[in-house]
């Protein structure tokens, strides 16, 4: 296990190196001087000259990259052009709302997808199965921002039950927080549910065909117990893998959902920064999001080894 863990963590090094390179070069792709790009067009000459020196822009690219990497590793992501605030606290502040939204969306999707997938598999080729599978395909085919818009139309415009946008911190007003959370969590959760349901269904079908499930049934174990104790335990493995991948994609989905619902998370921060040409924030957000994404993938692999001991032993 320790050897597996070490090799798995070691494999992160080239990936994280690569993501840092991409984030570094992202700013170099902006036409013109990177110092001007980072400080904005209205910055004065002296500030630009100071930043040029700080970024080592007159040095070779390798030195520039290492200088930048050294600063990032010590927590210095530069300053936002909007108000000159440091980027790191901005990013950290946005992580909370994003984590809350992602977590709520994951719960929404699991509550819908796991039962739906199991029922569809156990009643294969019935109307229930067709209905659930088609609904999942529709969920996959619907751009999430459109679903969000439809939910706003239904529950904020026609039936004024829920706020269409905004955020309230959970500790200051728990009810207000939840009422603001419902629509974005449903929006984000629906797409996730569609993919998870399809995976649960096909994993369950696979397992239900296996010999040991037939043996369990032959022994006279009640159907419900066979499904949950025997079949689902093994069907979880591919589902967890997919969940990990999907949870990572959630980090992409939040960009859109947060923008539609004005949810002040990392996604909205990124989009706002793009429009403000606030490249230091864009760079920091891209690097942070990619790092979290990579770490979630690692966590997925580790959960996988807990669920499936064969991976550990191999």
């Amino acid at each position: 296990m320790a050897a597996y863990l070490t090799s798995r963590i070691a494999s992160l090094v080239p990936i994280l190196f690569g993501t840092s390179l991409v984030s570094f070069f992202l700013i170099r792709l902006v036409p013109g001087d990177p110092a001007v790009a980072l400080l904005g067009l209205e910055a004065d000459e002296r500030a630009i000259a100071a930043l040029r020196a700080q970024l080592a822009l007159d040095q070779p690219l390798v030195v520039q990259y290492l200088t930048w990497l050294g600063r990032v590793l010590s927590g210095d992501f530069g300053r936002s052009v909007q108000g000159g605030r440091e980027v790191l606290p901005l990013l950290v502040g946005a992580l909370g709302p994003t984590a809350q939204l992602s977590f709520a969306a994951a719960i929404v999707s699991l509550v819908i997808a796991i039962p739906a997938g199991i029922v569809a598999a156990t009643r294969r080729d019935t109307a229930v199965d067709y209905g659930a599978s088609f609904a999942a395909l529709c969920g996959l085919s619907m751009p999430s921002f459109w679903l969000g818009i439809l939910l706003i139309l239904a529950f904020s415009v026609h039936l004024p039950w829920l706020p269409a946008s905004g955020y309230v911190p959970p500790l200051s007003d728990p009810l207000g927080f939840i009422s603001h959370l419902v629509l974005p969590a449903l929006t984000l959760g629906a797409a996730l549910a569609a993919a998870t349901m399809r995976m649960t269904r096909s994993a369950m079908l696979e397992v239900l065909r296996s010999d040991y499930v037939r043996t369990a049934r032959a022994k006279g174990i009640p159907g419900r117990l066979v499904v949950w104790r025997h079949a689902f335990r093994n069907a979880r493995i591919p589902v967890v893998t997919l969940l990990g991948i999907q949870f990572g994609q959630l980090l992409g989905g939040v960009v859109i959902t947060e923008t539609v619902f004005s949810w002040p998370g990392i996604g909205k921060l990124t989009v706002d920064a793009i429009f403000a040409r606030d490249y230091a924030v864009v760079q920091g957000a891209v690097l942070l999001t990619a790092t979290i994404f990579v770490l979630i993938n690692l966590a997925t692999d580790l959960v996988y080894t807990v669920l499936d001991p064969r991976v550990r032993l191999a």
Partner: protein
Amino acid sequence: MNAPATALAEAPVSARRWRATLLGRPRAAMGVLLVGLACLCAIAGPFLWPLDPNAPDFAAILSPPGPGHPFGTDDLGRDVLARILNGSSASLLVGLVSVAGALLAGTLIGLVAGYFGGWADTLLMRMMDVIFAFPSILLALAITAVLGPSLGNAVLAIAVVNLPVFARIARAQTLVVGQLDFVEARRALGFGTADILLRTVLPNITAPLIVQGSLLFASAIITESYLSFLGLGVQPPTPTWGNMLRTAISFLDLAPWLAWFPGIAIFVTVLGFNLLGDALRDLFDPREG
């Protein structure tokens, strides 16, 4: 054409099976129908409904669906149906070019990595891993943000995020096919590497790539709509389904139809490609499904 007589499971699919799979099953037939409808709108739309999508009619601002404007008008009095028909070509074009580009480049990368192995394999596939290390929408967003919003950059961004998918499939397939006897035979006969890769290996790894392509086409259309919705895709006044929804969000209480129709257009088109992709997968890989 060289028809490889091998143990590969991918026997050529007969015309009868094509027909039976694509038209004989309700879901597949629906996919063919929806994709056909979307293509028809993109090609013949302006002739079927010859209103100018960019002509403002200030006497008919935000008018609800009715005679003359079956899908209503927007905040400048432009006809929504004409804009949706016009926008279909942008969506399909971005989807087609970006997926085709990713398919070609990804296949080439996968072929080279799988066939040569060694450091070329490691380097290329590590690069693909790095692209995979970003949530795809975020990476597409970042690329269009730094290069500037335009149709071409949207295509480039979507192609880049899809690259690793094709490269991985092509590599895995090449690893298998490259070991087979007929490839070995070509090598023994003294054919050049390029010849072996393109004329012997490539024809034998295309099926899974095409299946994946049709599924990624669906997601490329969604990604394009995300970019346009955020204002980073094709720029107004040229209509796209995404930028129409961007407008719609300001008028949800006054003109909800602005939000319905472009969304339905995206949904129906993407659903069509997903259904078609599932059908193609069944066709080429009967084990799944």
